[in-house]
Every structure is written in C-alpha cells, then in structure tokens.
C-alpha cells in the first residue's frame, strides 16, 4: 500500500502520478496498480517512469475505467501497488536511441537517466507532454507531433534501439530493424509490449506472446523483447 504524493495533469488525459514509499525497479519494469477494492476486477499494469529515493512515478493515459479512477486520486489517497515485475530493457553500452510513441514515452524516462548521452525520439499524435524532462539526459532530443516518429530514426546509426509505443509502431519498428540488419547493421532493437494482463507475475498465461521459439509471457519474460523474436499475428 502506498500513498499518493501528487497526481498532476500534463496534457489532455495524461497524468503524472507520484507515490510515496521505498520502491525499487529497473528500467522497463512495471507495477500492478489498483486504487479500488474489488471492482474493476483486475489491477492495471503501469511502467516505471522514475524511481526516487522515497517515491515512484508513473505516467499514464486515461483510456478507460481503471485509469479514470487513477485520474481522480489526490495527495494522501491510498493506492495499492505490487512490483516491480517483468524483465525490462537491458543495461547496454554503445550508441543508443530511445523511441517513444505517445504514452510509450513513460518507461523511457528511466532509461534516459540510466543511459545518459543517448538520442531520444518522442512522437505524439497531438499535444506533446513531458518532453522537457528528457532534455537534461538526452544527447539529441527529437520531438514529432502528428507524424511518424520512426521516420526520424536511422536504425543503422545505432547499436541499440529501445522502442515503446502503440502496436502498429512496434510492428513498424520490427520491419525497420529487419531492414537495417539486412543492410549489414548489427543494431539490436528492443520492443516493450503492452499485452493485456491479469496476474502480472506469470501464473495465468493471458499475456502470452508468440515468439519464434514458442510462447512467452509478456509479464514475466518481458515486457521487453528483442524485435526479431516476436511474431506479430495481426
């Protein structure tokens, strides 16, 4: 059980939640949150945006019932969070690009702090948010509104590319990774998947990801996967 320190609106339907307490986690990992007793039934997975000394931050987009309840939280409110779960982005070295689409920028803030000097690409369909937070850590910061942020990224220029965003963006990133690799690039592209979850810890198999070597669990084996491992069905 944690206590809400702040819950600030950053843009239309986008909020920055800070919860007090001693929390841990690595970049790309997530927590299961609930700010209600039994209904809605399932907890909501949110990526770690930042971990502070006595607080943890999340960035979330209000899309439905659960996140609407999160948006109503005010300082002092109790909130349940369990985690950290999943295996996140690897601690790599070399030339690194962080590419986020919409609320997909949420986990990348932590990466930017852990991997200073990387290039950061943030894409938004409408109003941009949280861009300035990245500036102190990014070598180069590219912000795009209304276009396709992936078009701004030359995968061949990097050793590692971390991507988090909507499903079509992840598929496009997989194609770009394959194209770059077929041209001799040795870029490693990592995708953070947002499969629907129930248990969040690997016990229920509702979050299954088809991978080249069989089924994997988004919550326990991921949410971060090497792009070439994932088999997208649609």
């Amino acid at each position, binding site marked *: 059980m944690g206590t809400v320190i702040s819950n600030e609106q950053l843009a239309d339907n986008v909020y920055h939640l800070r919860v007090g307490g001693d929390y841990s986690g690595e970049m790309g990992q997530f927590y299961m949150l609930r700010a209600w007793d*039994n*209904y809605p039934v399932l*907890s909501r997975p949110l990526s770690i945006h930042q971990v502070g000394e006595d607080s943890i931050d999340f960035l979330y987009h209000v899309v439905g019932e659960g996140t609407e309840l999160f948006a109503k939280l005010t300082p002092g409110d109790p909130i349940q969070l369990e985690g950290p779960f999943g295996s996140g982005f690897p601690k790599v070295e070399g030339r690194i690009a962080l590419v986020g689409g919409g609320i997909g920028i949420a986990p990348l803030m932590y990466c930017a702090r852990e991997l200073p000097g990387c290039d950061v690409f943030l894409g938004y369909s409408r109003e941009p948010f949280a861009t300035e937070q990245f500036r102190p850590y990014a070598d180069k910061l590219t912000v795009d509104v209304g276009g396709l942020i992936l078009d701004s990224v030359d995968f061949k220029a990097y050793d590692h590319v971390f991507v988090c965003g909507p499903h079509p963006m992840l598929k496009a990133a997989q194609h770009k990774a394959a194209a770059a690799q077929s041209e001799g690039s040795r870029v490693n592209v990592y995708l953070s998947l947002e499969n629907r*979850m129930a*248990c969040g810890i690997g*016990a*229920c198999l*509702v979050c299954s990801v088809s991978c080249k070597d069989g089924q994997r669990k988004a919550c326990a084996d991921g949410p971060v996967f090497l792009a070439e491992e994932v088999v997208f*069905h*649609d």
Partner: protein
Amino acid sequence: MIRTETSGAADTKLDLSTVIAGVTFKNPIVMASGTFGFGREYAKFYDVNELGGISGKGLTLNPKAGNPGVRVYETPSGMLNSVGLENPGIHAFLKKEGAYWESLDTARIVNLGGNTFEDYVTGAELIQQDADRRAEHGTKAVDMIELNISCPNVKEGGIAFGIRTCDARELVRAVRGATSLPLSVKLSPNAEDIADMAAMCQEEGADAVSLINTISGMKIDVRRRRSVFNNLYAGLSGPAIKPVALRMVHQVAKRVSIPVIGMGGIASATDIVEFIMAGAAVVQVGTYNFMNMRAGRDLLTGLRQFMIEENISSLDEIRGII
C-alpha cells in the same frame, strides 16, 4: 483488509480440515486451476503451504500453445479468458515441476485436460506411472487428479465431453480405470444438467466433483464489428458468476454423496462460508488471485476470524446446512 491476531489457544480449537478420498486438506482454500500456475509465482508473496491445496494449470498430453489473439477481457465484476489451455504438456510438467511439487506441504491436484478420448486416458496413465515410480522411492508429487471436461476455450475435446452426460460417461469410466489416484471430475456450468452429470460421475467411481468451470460468454468490439476473441466465445469467471456457481454447488451437493469442490467468484471469507453452507467440502479460488496477490493468506485469516466471531469450531458444523 481483515487482520486480527487470533490467540494460539483460540486457533487450536478451530478445525478447518477436510479429508477427501484419503487426501487431507488442512483448510478449505484451494487455488483454482489456470489461475495459480504451479504455485511457484505466488510462493514469492506468501507461504503457499498454508493453503489447503493447489490445482495446477490444466495439462494435456502434448504441449499446447493456446489461443492466438486477445486472451482476456474485463467485464462488470468478472473477466473473460480465452487462454485455450496453453501448457507445457504432462511430460514437461512432471520433469520440471515434479520435484517442486514433491516438496510442497499442501494437497497437490493435477488438472487434466485433453482433446481426444485417448489424450485423456494416456495422460491419466502417465500421471499414474509417475506416481508409482515416486512411490517406490517413498515420495509423492500428486495427491489427486482433477479431470477437466469443461474447458470452453478449446475447439475439440474439453467442453465437448462436458455438455451431455452420455458423452462424458465413457470418458470418466476410462480415466477411472486408468488411475488409482483420487479423482475429481470438473464440471461445466454449460452442461445440459449439471446435477445429472455429477450423479453420473459418482456412479462411475469418481471420488469428488469440482464445479464450476467458467461460463461461456462473449464480448463484441462494436467499432470493429467482431468478437474481441478469435474463438468468438470465452470463459467468464470472477464475482459475476458467484450466484450461479453457488446455486449449482447447492444442487449438486443435494444430489450426490461424494464431496463437492465448489468454486466460482469467491472473493471473500464470507463467500467461502456461503459455498460451505451450500454443501461444498472445500472451495477453489481463481480470479480473486488477480485481485489480491496474497489471496490465499488473507482469505484464511478472514475465515478464521469469521469462525471465531460466529463461534464455529469446525466447518462441519455449517457444511451443507442450507
């Protein structure tokens, strides 16, 4: 969350245990198949040996990849799942989890699924052979088989056996013949007549019946004008199904003399008490694990507290009183 310190003296007076076909359940809280893996994940949150039992993820003879596409959708007070029995297969289970299950101090139930008649029977034989092998070394990994003839999420098999009593009879008979392990048959709420089905299981030598499995349900994406699930329908579980499950447990308990393992939507200690009053010997808890990662421990604390408050020293006092 209910948390009271019960004094040791008061606690020793409480009898929460039940014996089913020689298998002791130290309390009536068993984790339901498919929601608890094989116990390892939740063991990181509390001591799963405190539980009455664990029913493992449904196993089939050969590994199964499960269903593609969306596998979960939330509903008012419940959830639909379309996992499609993804599992590593019986061989891999016995090899990878056998030693862990041997080390558990709680009733261990293998949930057996299948596509064809032969799958089920061969599966039961394999589990029996493994049990015989372990018995030679004085060890044990499985206390009971739960025969799942009720999974709504696989195209062939599963539910196909679970709808009509006449279709299920031969299968229950054959599996009964293939194993001497205690056998519970897991029934579907989608059966034509669940009490008939239970009576048939008793006639064919089952030691218990488990009910209910998920209720076949549906969710339509109105903008894309299609079901959200590749298989069209999915299985509904959670608090939404509790009244239906309770009624069915009551009906079945009135009809058969073998123990009834009741489940469906349990999310509190008083829910457990309702099932026991309706006649359940023990209960299983599924979806509530997703609502509370320490479900087993908290339910047990709540149940003890209820017994103290209501001056109940043994669950036998209230079992089947309705």
